[in-house]
């Protein structure tokens, strides 16, 4: 019983850790990112999981924009969504890393929900594990 409880706690800590790590990384990126007005040149889909789309599709916009120093960036904007929100020709605001303009993201798309889900599952598992530990100690 205690062993199972500890497994729950470990799984919970790992999930929550991943969620917190990704959230911190996103926050760091947004704090230093530059902004640009981009044009969607393509929208690509990517299957989630094995089996060619059995787990659904992620839609990723391909954008083109110019940096203040005159470079043209074409890139898949990270943080795709499972709903096709973009069409070629559409304009949208993007964030990019000034030191590596190929790292482009669409502010507010995708990532936040995934981080919340990871942290939520992690906290749930950890609490469940701690509850099981407390129960097994109380029982004997």
């Amino acid at each position, binding site marked *: 019983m205690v062993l199972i409880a500890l497994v729950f706690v470990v799984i919970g800590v790992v999930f929550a850790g991943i969620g917190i790590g990704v959230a911190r990384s996103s926050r760091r990126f947004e704090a230093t990112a530059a902004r640009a007005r981009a044009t969607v040149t393509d929208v690509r889909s*990517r299957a989630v999981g094995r089996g060619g789309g059995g787990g659904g599709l992620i839609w990723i916009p*391909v954008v*083109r924009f110019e940096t203040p120093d005159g*470079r043209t960036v*074409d890139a898949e904007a990270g943080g795709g969504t499972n709903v096709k929100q973009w069409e070629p020709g559409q304009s949208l605001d993007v964030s990019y890393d000034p030191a590596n303009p*190929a790292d*482009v993201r669409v502010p507010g798309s995708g990532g936040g929900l995934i981080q919340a889900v990871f942290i939520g599952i992690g906290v749930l598992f950890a609490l469940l594990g701690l509850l099981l530990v407390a129960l097994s100690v109380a029982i004997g």
Partner: protein
Amino acid sequence: MDYTLRRIGPAAVLPGAILLVALGLSLAGAIPIPPEVILVLLALALYQGLQRTLVLRVDADGIRLGRGVMYEYGAARTLRTGVPWEHVREVVAGPGEVGVRLKEGAPLPDGARSMVSDPGRPDVLAPDLRVAVPGRFDRAELEAAVAAHGPGVPVTDLNRA
């Protein structure tokens, strides 16, 4: 005349090799899995393996660069950049590497994740548009295939700039 270059690595042949052994054991009656099932899995593994071995292909459609495999969205994906001839400015070849430079304004090719075009440094190759080639790479065959399918597209030295 097409030119195809493949790299045979453990990741490509291991699943097939394991299934081949399983097929032998199944035929010998040592394992209770029908050989037909193993044959189908073997065919799938060989097909998958073959897909992952592609390093470079030059044909009527354009140029494909096999950039390996990455794990993303819960699955292993084969990274392959495909550039149609209408977007190829030149093919560059150097010791151990082949790349493609695009015409101005060309869109991000299929399979490429990003490219940054700097008008002050037009000869810089985007990482997704270059690939390391094994020692068997034959520049003369590459040039012949490019001449056959992409008339007017030059093959230049990678270190020219």
